[in-house]
């Protein structure tokens, strides 16, 4: 362990909470009206999930677009200005986008035509949480509305929403597609924890819940 054992999580934090949330404010100002577009596309995903037929390619395409956007617009262009590690986060988000394109579009492996009701409900609920409720948590925690983190353009709700959607398909558990969103739940949760944010546990808990549901789904499939 050596010197590493003497580090605390907060020792890795390069910026103040004020700077972090202000980053979202400036980012939101600069990408307007992308938030509206991303929200509407989220509603499109919801409609495609509700239809429950073979629209997996469209859902994968929208999700891949979200992850690519966040990789470039958020991590590379904005977050990297206060956190050099964001360059690596951008890489992770590009990989997830490419995996979604490969699995969902090219190989057409995201099928929503014969889903199990329990996991459809659970996945849709998590997706709805990311789309509608998660962005409200910041303002409810006392942060400015201008710093709101919108699904599709901000990484946290996008990771949670993606995990929700990945619970729904009938075909199989897409562990490969789940790795990056789960990893982000840990990374962002750790960042918020180091900043002593009141919502620090939200992402790790949601990620853990999705993981439990995914394992359960897999066990159901083998029965």
């Amino acid at each position: 362990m050596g010197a590493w054992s003497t580090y605390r999580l907060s020792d890795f934090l390069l910026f103040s909470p004020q700077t972090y949330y202000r980053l979202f404010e400036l980012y939101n100002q600069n990408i307007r009206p992308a938030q509206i577009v991303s929200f509407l596309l989220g509603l499109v995903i919801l409609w495609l999930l509700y239809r429950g037929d073979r629209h997996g390619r469209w859902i994968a395409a929208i999700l891949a677009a979200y992850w690519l956007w966040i990789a470039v617009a958020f991590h590379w262009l904005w977050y990297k200005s206060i956190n050099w590690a964001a360059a690596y986060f951008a890489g992770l988000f590009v990989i997830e986008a490419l995996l979604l394109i490969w699995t969902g579009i090219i190989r057409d492996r995201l099928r929503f035509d014969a889903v199990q009701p329990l996991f459809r409900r659970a996945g849709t609920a998590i997706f709805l949480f990311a789309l509608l409720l998660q962005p409200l948590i910041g303002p409810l925690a006392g942060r400015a509305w201008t710093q709101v983190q919108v699904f599709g353009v901000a990484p946290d709700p996008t990771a949670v929403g993606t995990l929700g959607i990945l619970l729904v398909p009938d075909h199989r558990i897409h562990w490969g597609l789940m790795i990056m969103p789960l990893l982000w739940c840990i990374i962002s949760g750790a960042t918020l924890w180091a900043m002593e944010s009141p919502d620090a546990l939200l992402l790790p808990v949601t990620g853990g819940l999705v993981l439990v549901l995914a394992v359960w789904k897999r066990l159901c499939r083998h029965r």
Partner: protein
Amino acid sequence: MKHSSDISRRADITRRDFLRTMAAAGTCLMLRPPSILGASQQSMHTRKIPSTGEEMPAIGLGSWITFNVGFDPVARDTCVQVMKNFFDAGGRIIDSSPMYGSSQDVIGYGLAQLNHPDRLFSADKVWTYSDGNGPSQIAESRQKWNVPEFDLLQVHNLLSWQAHLELLFEMKKKGRLRYVGITTSHGRRHDDFEQIMRRHPLDFVQFSYNVVNREAEERLLPLAKDRGIAVIINRPFRQSELIDFVKRHPLPEWASEIDCDNWAQILLKFIISHPAVTCAIPATRQVTHVRENMGALHGRLPDENMRRRIVRHVEKL
């Protein structure tokens, strides 16, 4: 010409004018808060850099976290104000690192806004695992600060220190760098640190030391004194943990015995009163805080008894 005119004007001053002026000046002095008075009128605590004898004010400015504000124009301008107040109060050394996000860019922005004050002593670091990336990283840092050369470059947290130290000594030999140093923080790797201090002709070392973290008193500070190495102290307030804690308690009565108006000055004077310390580098993004910090450059410093008293008092809080 100017000189003779001044003399003739002085000759016209009557005794009454003189007394009136002195009375007005005395009133002004009484009305001014001690910290402002100190900056302009009292002698400032400076320390000599042992390897050259160059004078250095005992309080500098760090940039860890506080200056990493990205593109935020409002926060950047606040940082400029902090820098302006720092220089106005007699400050010289600003310390940063490629590790500190946008801090170097923000310092560069601030220096440009302030027309590159002559008194700046630029201190930065090399921080890369790769032995070969040192020169390009230094060039990039210099570009961000927009300075022709750095005054001091330090190997950050002893990362790949062998190769980087060699590079820095080479730069110094060629006249492209004035001082070479190494850094650590949080009390880490003190054994390695000590070995490097013994074996290499360092100008500066930087490590953590404060009233509740005094490990450096045992070996590093005495060794620096023996070896004639200047000492920069980081984390004087343990980020903000220590100052936030002590501020919850009233200022001790004896604070006036060392001319301290606030806790920040007590904590900083404790540090700079150590005979081996050259300067402490508190980081802040608040103008009021930089003014408080710079107030520690003036007035009486604690003697050994008072230093022990400070430790006892803080430990009891």
